[in-house]
């Protein structure tokens, strides 16, 4: 995979840390839930950072927080990607529920734009209201997520660490009850190798065995996830 340099054109401090805007070449367009793997040139960093889109797809990609505190606007980043598998919004979805659990909603925002573009109604179950959220998106308190079971036909979750075992109860599902429609989750785990090393630190337990979120995820069908 070729390495590509791009500029971090803007940096803002949000509730969940630094978020930014990257100027991307035309051939790099991560899908919602996919990520770029990048590091700042000349900074002696040991690790690259997973950069998730937090806005509509385009030449300027809004990047979800948190970004390293050592980064500054105007820095050149070297990136590779897009990596991993992202969300698959069904073309027929008309009532889309988005719910970050234990984290901010930014990584789900690209899905909101996609859903609106196919004339779906979108509800975001979140206590945080991100900048630039389209006005057509309805904001609902996260405690009301169980209501989505009666309303939505697609659910997308962003699961902070520790929420993999608890999303069912947050969504109002009883023990053994299945989600009555298609749902997916972006599982937040540390990513070290960006799909190169099979090191296992990002391993996620699925019905078909261990899966590496860095290349097979980080988005999984909810029906596939094991606690």
């Amino acid at each position, binding site marked *: 995979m070729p390495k590509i340099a791009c500029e971090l054109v803007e940096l803002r401090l949000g509730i969940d840390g630094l978020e930014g805007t990257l100027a991307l070449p035309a051939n790099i367009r991560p899908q919602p839930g996919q990520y770029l793997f990048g590091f700042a040139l000349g900074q*002696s960093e040991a*690790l*690259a950072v997973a950069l998730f889109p937090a806005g509509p797809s385009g030449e300027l990609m809004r990047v979800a927080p948190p970004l390293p505190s050592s980064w500054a606007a105007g820095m050149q980043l070297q990136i590779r990607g897009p990596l991993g598998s992202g969300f698959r919004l069904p073309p027929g979805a008309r009532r889309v529920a988005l719910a970050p659990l234990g984290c901010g909603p930014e990584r789900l925002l690209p899905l909101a734009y996609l859903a609106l573009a196919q004339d779906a109604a979108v509800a975001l179950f979140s206590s945080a209201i991100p900048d630039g959220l389209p006005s057509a998106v309805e904001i609902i308190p996260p405690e009301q997520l169980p209501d989505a079971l009666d309303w939505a036909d697609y659910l997308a979750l962003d699961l902070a660490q520790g929420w993999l075992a608890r999303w069912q109860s947050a969504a109002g599902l009883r023990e053994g009850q299945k989600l009555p429609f298609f749902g997916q989750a972006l599982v937040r785990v540390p990513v070290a190798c960006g799909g*190169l*090393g*099979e*090191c296992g*630190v990002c391993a996620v337990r699925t019905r078909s065995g261990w899966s590496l979120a860095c290349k097979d995820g980080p988005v999984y069908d909810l029906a596939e996830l094991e606690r």
Partner: protein
Amino acid sequence: MAFAAREELTLGSPWINAAGSLGFAPGGDWPVPIPQGAFVTNPISLRTRAPAEDRTLIEYPGGFLLHTGVVNPGLGEVIKRYASRWARSMLPVWVHLLADSPEDVLQMVQELESLEGVTAIVLGVPPRTYGEQALSLVAAAGSERPLVVEVPLTAAGDGWIGRLANLGVAALSLAAPRGALPNAGGEIIGGHLVGPGLFPQVLAAVRLARRARLPLIASAGVYTREQGEALLQAGAWAVALDGVLWRGWEE
């Protein structure tokens, strides 16, 4: 004990990947503008190793600690999945073995004996294994293939390292040491260390290990061409890259 003559260990380029950095088979993911001399597999145990329950990555100034449980599907499954790619590889493939008993070492070496493309065996000495115990693992790895022994760079000055040459070992790899850090919950987690902060240690270890009279592979802490060249100048026979392959190469 008598040892059969082994094949010679050769490299077309002294720049290779460290075990654990690029998976189990060559895939063309070499981001460095210097030719790769060999492909080293991830560590492979005799039996499946599942991810550690408390697996984690913890950053610190100069690097990061990685605790994974050395995940791998076990030698039999690795051979089933990857042997054909090893045989087709344009690069020499060095298979890295992880074993804590001489019996396991012997069995694993025998299972690799007939495979094409495998040009060397790397025996990783497990953590907290030293002296006679480590030497017994090395002695069990009787094979016609060249044997590379990998130890943490902190063992570079140990007396038993000097006895490896007499056991028919072809090269000594000085790998990243282990360390411990508190995780987000305050629990102390042990794991192996990766990052440019290790460079002064690996350079010192190469100087120290020259007395082992073996070709040395510096397998930690290299993030730039200059660092790798400094190690080669200091007496390393090869340089193995780890974290920089994941982060990306900068020139």
